[in-house]
């Protein structure tokens, strides 16, 4: 089936994007972010989870955490294209919260069909969740999970779990006697230990989650099928977050080089500064266009969703690396200091580049689809 010309990004979506932009502009300007997460600069600082719970609650009350939950399950049932608009604004604000994790869990649960509805109700009720399926090597193939389900309980460790400390529920991929399954349980359940990671990114928390006989509800007996359905949306939304963050990087840097003078000229006069920033813009725009194309495919052209989502995340990862690099370099000495906000986005983008597969990983999979698996 063909995609609508406008990506299915209609008035409702535009309204949501605007109100999200307004919400973060008013409630979470960058100085607030810096004050919240950058108080302690010590490079040896222990794992920590820093976020604004009240503001998150407002976001929940606005219904934004249940946008992707189908109306049938008590949610809003918004298309991925519309959700991408919201996530783009979230990324622009680099707002530390478990929204992406919750949306990711939502798409997986939806793909689980009937078995997933109870869990979706938790999300519709405002609970935050996150996925736990990666092994210690950061392998994005769910079959590599180190978690096993036996005797009605989970055993083993899931690594690189995003915003774990902010979540009420975990959606775990575990091997079972009959293949890979998906399991739903409270993050503070008996037999679950969250071991926080000490990470570079100041706007997220991350943990490896140890399961030692934790009881859990199975929501799918065919994890691969559910994940393959949901992953394109997951990749696309992360790419949308990176596009929003990069717009912040570009705008902030352009403002700086427009005013900062060297050699009696604003820095932005020099093509050595100007042209790289143009290149940043060009890469942002391509990534952004690919994001909405992928989102629209998730909504209306399932057979193309994976292909287009690989493109979006690959483009976003390379773009984010370049935008981050130029944001620090163009700021010169000041950009190298903790006081200057650019490092917050620099670090968030670095994290996002690797998360859910870096550019090379996505291109390799895209090649298998477009060219066919190599001989």
């Amino acid at each position, binding site marked *: 089936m*063909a*995609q*609508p*010309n*406008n*990506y299915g*990004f209609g*008035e409702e*979506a*535009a309204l949501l*994007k605007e109100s999200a932009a307004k919400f973060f502009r008013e409630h979470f300007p960058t100085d607030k972010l810096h004050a919240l997460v950058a108080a302690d600069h010590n490079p040896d600082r222990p794992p920590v989870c820093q976020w604004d719970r009240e503001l998150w609650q407002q976001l929940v009350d606005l219904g934004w955490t249940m946008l992707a939950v189908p109306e049938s399950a008590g949610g809003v049932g918004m298309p991925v294209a519309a959700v991408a*608009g919201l996530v783009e604004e979230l990324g622009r604000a680099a707002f530390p919260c478990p929204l992406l994790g919750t949306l990711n869990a939502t798409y997986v649960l939806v793909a689980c069909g009937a078995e997933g509805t109870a869990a979706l109700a938790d999300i519709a009720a405002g609970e935050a969740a996150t996925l736990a399926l990666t092994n210690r090597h950061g392998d994005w193939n769910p079959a590599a999970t180190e978690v096993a389900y036996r005797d009605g309980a989970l055993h083993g460790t899931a690594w690189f779990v995003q915003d774990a400390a902010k979540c009420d529920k975990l959606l775990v991929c575990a091997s079972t006697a009959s293949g890979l399954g998906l399991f739903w349980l409270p993050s503070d359940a008996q037999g679950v230990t969250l071991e926080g990671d000490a990470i570079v990114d100041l706007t997220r928390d991350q943990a490896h989650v140890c399961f030692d006989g934790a009881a859990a509800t199975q929501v799918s007996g065919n994890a691969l099928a559910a994940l393959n359905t949901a992953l394109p949306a997951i990749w696309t939304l992360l790419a949308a977050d990176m596009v929003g963050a990069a717009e912040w990087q*570009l705008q902030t840097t*352009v403002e700086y*080089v*427009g005013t900062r003078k060297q050699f009696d*000229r*604003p820095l*932005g*006069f*020099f*093509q050595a500064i*100007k*042209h790289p*920033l*143009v*290149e940043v*813009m*060009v890469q942002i*725009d*391509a*990534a*952004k*266009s*690919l994001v*909405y*194309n992928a989102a629209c495919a998730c909504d209306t052209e399932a057979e193309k969703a994976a292909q*287009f989502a690989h*493109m979006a995340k*690959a*483009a976003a990862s390379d773009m984010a690396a370049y935008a981050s690099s130029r944001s620090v370099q163009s700021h010169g000495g000041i950009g190298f200091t903790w006081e200057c906000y650019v490092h917050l986005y620099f670090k968030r983008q670095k994290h996002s580049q690797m998360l859910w597969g870096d550019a*090379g990983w996505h*291109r*390799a999979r*895209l*090649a298998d689809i*477009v*060219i*066919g698996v*190599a*001989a």
Partner: protein
Amino acid sequence: MSDDTARKDTPEQAEFRTYCREWLQANKPGEPPVRLPQSPLEIMTTEQLGYLQAWQKSAYDAGLVGCDYPVEVGGGGRKDCQKIANEEMLAARTPFLPNVIGLGMAAPTVFYHAREEVKAELLPRLFSGEDIWCQGFSEPGAGSDLASVQTFAERRGDTWVVNGHKVWTSLAHFAEWMIILLRTDKSHKYDGLSYFVVPIRAALGKGVTVRPLIKITGETGFNEVIFDNLEVDDRYRLDELGKGWQVAMTTLLHERGAGELQTPRAGGMKNKSSHTISSSAVIELAKNTRRGEGTAADDPILRDKMMQQLIREEGLKQNQRRSRVQALLDHPMRLLLQNKLLASEIAQSLGSLALEVEGMSSSLYLADPNAPARGQWPMAYMNSYGMTIAAGTSEVQRNILGERVLGLPKSK
């Protein structure tokens, strides 16, 4: 076209779309008798031109070219129908329309800035392709810096006497008319420019000399034009004296697809022999290129590069799609002004990637029977520099984007 596109048609458009489809089914020309060039600007022989002119004439007579222009100037008097005709002609894989400069740059400029009687005189034969048009902006001393045009027009009553030298004038060796930027006042850089249309073919030997320039590919196809006391009637001046720069903006805006009027476009037809210039063509090439035990399409590094290329292409395509979705735009020109830069640089990296895929066989050129894809890739790669240089180098495009869109201070 996808039904989805059709869904969005107005009643007039829907009815016109059906008409176009039926007409094309009945009248689309068959396999051409000659090797078609990769684009109108590469037309080298009168055989090629004749075949393509005949096609444009028939499409014009059928009402598929110039649909949105008023009837008085030879147009179809329709509303927003050119895009429909374009979509259907592309879908039908017709030959392209040869009078590309006429349709894309001259027609809108003449339409917005010429006198009524001049429009009526020139536009019908422009739309029909009977008169080929060319453009005279660049000069030996004025490349990226258009405003430093020196070719001078001196007033003698109602006549202008033109002297000077224009370069990179594609199609001039076939052209009846040229749109030209002339200096009418040496004391002001910008306000000293005026815009004219001047006869070429009719004036050959009578004030106009056309010399072919040879590209690094060895192809001819563009020219230098020397004016030696060419006399031009004042009626062929567009807009007021000294307004040449503003008129030129109309031309450039439409060249970049950012203008009011949709440019008539057709194409898609290929000789059995010829190949498209796209990442999918390079993927095909790789599949058919032996590498060690397997093919170049098995090489992980080439696979990665081909995907980078494919992603850039899709990104440009989606930019063009997003440029029509208001809610996903900020600065109105931000995407449009990237088109030329991206298209030309994507073509360049594609060409270079194709040569890498071909490996040592990329040394073989057009006349070599063993050349992959008949040697088109080395030629396409070299021609890509025409794209990154002509009509504002990539460097100038980046200045424009940095200054107009990002609002950074001018670099000059």
